[in-house]
């Protein structure tokens, strides 16, 4: 009897833990919607999304987030261009080519890269990368989207490498053996057989890496210059959605249009990363 009661309590407790995460997400989403949608009492949704000036504390406030959306997209695009080839290449090397000991060292190193706090990466970027970018491209300042992209690429790499590596391991051994039996070289096997077979997992890895990048805040805030202009390329300063929220939330008077606008930016970010994660999920499940 007692055992049954114990069992029952424990079962329900675990159920509660399981539900908790869903409840929290729902609560967060409701709060975000409630606060964020209030901004549209002050500004029309079209103006908010396509407005070109972001002067939130002026009277009247100008709340156009187009430069911020484009800023986030540019940085993410740049980071993807850098991190995807390197990340996938690294995963292939670890999964297929590296001998035992090198493999362990590499995997450890990548896990370590994931463990570096973003503020530290941002700080390192500020002192080393920013002057380098300035000098290499002869710019007036090194606080640019490119500096942000490079640092973010470092952050996306661990995600991309570890998930892409798993996807490569998941390819049935018979595929590889079949390719070898047909006389394919190691490279031909990787390029023509393994990569296509693991492609959905690799796409998922890339999407999750991008999801990480788009939500990153501290490092980009430190090194992208944060000027709210519509960026024409990666060699210019830009301002991301996340940096805007982080930099301005402290000042925003609770209940002001600025405050609501920051929550509305939160909704936009939520939608973007939700879309990215759903895409990743679709590809992961296609794999199975």
């Amino acid at each position, binding site marked *: 009897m007692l055992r049954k009661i114990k069992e029952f309590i424990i079962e329900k407790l675990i159920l509660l833990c399981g539900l908790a995460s869903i409840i929290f997400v729902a609560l967060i989403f409701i709060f975000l919607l409630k606060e964020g949608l209030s901004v549209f009492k002050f500004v029309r949704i079209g103006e908010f999304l396509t407005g070109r*000036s*972001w*002067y*939130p*504390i*002026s009277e009247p406030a100008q709340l156009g987030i187009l*430069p911020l959306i484009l800023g986030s997209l540019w940085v993410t695009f740049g980071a993807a261009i850098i991190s995807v080839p390197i990340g996938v290449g690294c995963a292939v090397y670890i999964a297929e080519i590296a001998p035992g000991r090198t493999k362990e060292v590499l995997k450890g190193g990548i896990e370590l890269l994931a463990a570096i706090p973003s503020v530290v990466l941002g700080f390192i970027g*500020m002192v080393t990368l920013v*002057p380098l970018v*300035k000098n290499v491209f002869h710019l*007036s*300042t090194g*606080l640019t989207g490119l500096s942000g992209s490079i640092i973010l690429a470092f952050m996306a790499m661990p995600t991309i490498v570890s998930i892409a590596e798993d996807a490569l391991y998941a390819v049935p051994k018979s595929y590889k053996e079949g390719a070898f039996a047909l006389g394919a070289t190691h490279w031909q096997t990787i390029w023509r057989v393994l990569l296509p077979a693991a492609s959905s997992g690799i796409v998922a890895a890339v999407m999750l890496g991008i999801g990480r990048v788009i939500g990153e805040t501290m490092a980009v*805030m*430190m090194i992208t*210059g*944060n*000027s*709210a*202009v519509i960026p024409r390329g990666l060699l210019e*300063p830009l*301002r991301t959605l996340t940096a805007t929220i982080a*930099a*301005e939330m*402290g*000042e*925003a*008077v*609770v*209940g*002001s249009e600025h405050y609501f606008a920051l929550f509305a930016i939160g909704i936009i970010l939520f939608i973007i990363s939700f879309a990215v994660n759903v895409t990743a999920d679709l590809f992961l499940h296609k794999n199975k």
Partner: protein
Amino acid sequence: MARILVALLMLMLGANNAFAGSKSSALQIKGSDTMVNLGQAWAEKYMEEHPDAFIAVTGGGSGTGMASLISGTCNIAMSSRNIKQKEVDQDKARGHTPVEVKVALDGIAVVVSPKNPVAKLTVDQLAGIFSGKITNWKQLGGPDAKIVVLSREVNSGTHVYFKEHVLRKNDPKSKEEFAPGALMLSSSQAIADEVSGNPAAIGYYGMGYISPKQKAVAVARDEQSEYIEPTIDNVVKNLYPISRPLYFYVNDECQGLTKKFIDFALSPEGQAIVKETDFVPIK
């Protein structure tokens, strides 16, 4: 099982007590990044003389301090700008009246790299540079290089002050804004770092941050006036055009440790610390 529960309960009660205990003898000061060093210097000296008192000083920006004061998470808000009407209303809605105490003065230095030949500017020229109408150092007698404008983020009292008093020249109807291309940096130190490494950059921060790696520009009210260096003497004599008061804000008439601490800050000893931290005493 029961024993664990009892232990947990005790722990929670204990933590509660400890929290309540710390609340009565601890002072939370929060706000302006410009004033953090000053607040810390005051707090250290005060705690040295009164070992039973505990004072925590944190930054975050004037607006952050104000928000904490209103929500009751700090006792004193440090601010490098006046309280806004909206904030007064919010505080009143919570049953408090904010009280302002002027504790020091600060000159805002406009800084360029020591490699930059430009050494003096008028307020009009500064307004032109920071609002994006003047874009090349050539227009100011310097080399042919694009001006890199550095500003603080909007949560900074210095940002607000600079916009209202330099860009808008105290005209409440003015619509001048910082140039959209101005880089927004999150701390005075970040501005100092960027200016020292970039000969084309110009930025502003509280006088206390001036170091040999940056050159403070002499500023004139208009073309006819004299160009004035940002020094303590010039701010006290009200000659330097870009200077501002620094404030403490408290809820209602303060008492206890809060009052003692503010009295200490205003005492000759406290004002001597103001001078040591490169700000300007009010007396």
